[in-house]
């Protein structure tokens, strides 16, 4: 077994050296050969749990570019690799999309603080949809129970657990505001987080080095860090995923609300807006003068949290 894989590896190396090709293709092939070779070495000593196919895929994944520098072909390749890897590791099929933003679309959100009752259906729907770590109880959305007259969530209670709504309190949902002038994207040393043309701030989980500068830069506590390997029960994994959205994250990377990029780019509402039983959450295209969100901005009393910072969030609070 050991010698045969070794031979195969040598054959591959020889093949590569003899055929003329570009540097990139050469590196790629070399990496496959090396993976095959190293797999052989491991299996020689003890029984490896990983198949050589899985190792090869992981090796190739290791050499991919930042998502923004990839050509469409490379994006399709990495998505195919990730789907195959998931199949090998979990024996389940997932569909990972790399759907591009639509033209003339800028996503925006409005939250009605006089309607929210603090039921937290949005939080639960978000956890389910985005495959959030159940062990560390990661949540993108936080609902604060607020005293009347207060508009700063830090003054509210974010850990309430009693019957809601409570008389003479109001509820304020906080999540990533997808700022137009986002400080988190400027703090990132590896350019692993950026603003997409439709206004969504995304993270390339494979380029995140876990330095957490973005977490420190965000004035809204919009980002979550994976301190451990995220755990989601296999039957609960949302199978329709996006490369920049709810695909499975790993230990040591940053993640955040993506306005459910896997849903919204297909014309659907984010999971939180769909789950809300009170209709407090309005989502839509800011560039469409006929959209609901534009109606809210035009006809309602709106404010943005910490507007004076100049971060230009695309998330408005409004009252009836």
């Amino acid at each position, binding site marked *: 077994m050991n010698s045969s894989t070794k031979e195969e590896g040598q054959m591959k190396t020889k093949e590569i050296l003899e055929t003329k090709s570009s540097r990139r293709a050469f590196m790629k092939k070399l990496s496959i050969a090396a993976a095959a070779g190293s797999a052989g070495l491991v299996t020689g000593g003890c029984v490896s749990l990983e198949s050589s196919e899985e190792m090869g895929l992981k090796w190739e994944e290791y050499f991919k570019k930042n998502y923004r520098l990839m050509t469409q072909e490379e994006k399709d390749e990495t998505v195919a690799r990730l789907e195959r890897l998931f199949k090998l590791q979990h024996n389940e099929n997932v569909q990972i999309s790399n759907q591009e933003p639509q033209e*003339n*679309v*800028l996503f925006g959100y*409005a939250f*009605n603080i006089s*309607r929210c*009752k*603090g*039921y*937290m*259906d949005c*939080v*639960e729907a978000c*956890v389910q949809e985005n495959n959030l770590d159940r062990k560390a*109880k990661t*949540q993108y959305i*936080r*609902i604060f129970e607020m005293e009347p007259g207060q508009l700063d969530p830090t003054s509210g209670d*974010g*850990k*309430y*657990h*009693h*019957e*809601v*709504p409570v008389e003479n309190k109001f509820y304020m949902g906080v999540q990533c505001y997808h700022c*137009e*002038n986002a400080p988190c994207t400027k703090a990132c040393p590896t350019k692993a987080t950026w603003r997409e043309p439709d206004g969504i701030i995304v993270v390339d989980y494979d380029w995140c080095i876990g330095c957490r500068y973005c977490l420190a830069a965000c004035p809204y*506590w919009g980002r979550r860090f994976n301190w451990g390997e995220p755990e989601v029960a296999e039957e609960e994994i949302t199978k329709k995923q996006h490369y920049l959205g709810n695909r499975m994250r790993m230990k040591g990377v940053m993640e955040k609300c993506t306005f459910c990029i896997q849903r*919204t780019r*297909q*014309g*659907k*509402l984010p999971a939180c807006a*769909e789950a*809300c*039983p*009170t*209709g407090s959450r*309005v*989502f*839509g*295209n*800011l*560039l*469409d*003068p*006929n*959209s*609901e*969100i*534009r*109606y*809210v901005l035009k*006809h*309602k009393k709106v404010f943005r949290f910490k507007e004076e910072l*100049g971060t*230009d969030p*695309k998330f408005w609070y409004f009252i*009836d």
Partner: protein
Amino acid sequence: MKKLFFCSSLLFLVLGMVLTSRQTAMASGSSVMDHILAADEPFDNRTIESAHALPVKTVQAKESYQGGTFRVLARKDSITRFRCSVCHTDKVVQVRDGVLFTHGDIEINHGRGNDKLACIECHDEDDRDFLSDAEGKKIDFDHSYQLCGQCHFRPKRDWLGGAHGKRVTYWAGERVVQNCTNCHSPHAPAFATKMPVTYSLPLDE
């Protein structure tokens, strides 16, 4: 030599000042609001093909949204004992069947204090398959917003515009919204007090 050094440092200072002033100008001048308000061309929602027709039954609303049409979720199919006229006939009901036929399970909690509404304030007195407004005009069960809106005109105005109520499934495609009665029980329209479905841990700040 010293002069050269002085000149070059001055140049850098001027350059730096120009750059920083440009940056601040950019930060204060271009807010996302300017960008949003500059967009006055309606977006063609049909371009997003995945936002196709919904699998649920909808009806065309009898009012307009931003000058155009929209749809609401149909109501009649989800009323368990519709059509009402099956029971509500001229036939005399015997006392022993009365238990079966009365709506004893409905508790009306609609209206302020002890001043609760009576059935026929919304339901048509003569034709039980319809509702009727204060002027006696018959209103279809699918279009109950016409009835609710006669008192709750502010929520209705917001609902027509999109600040109250909610869209169904898609932000794109044809506008489909929930009817009043999808969220509010007409007999007890206030939202209940209940436990939240989950809880949050303190943030690691």
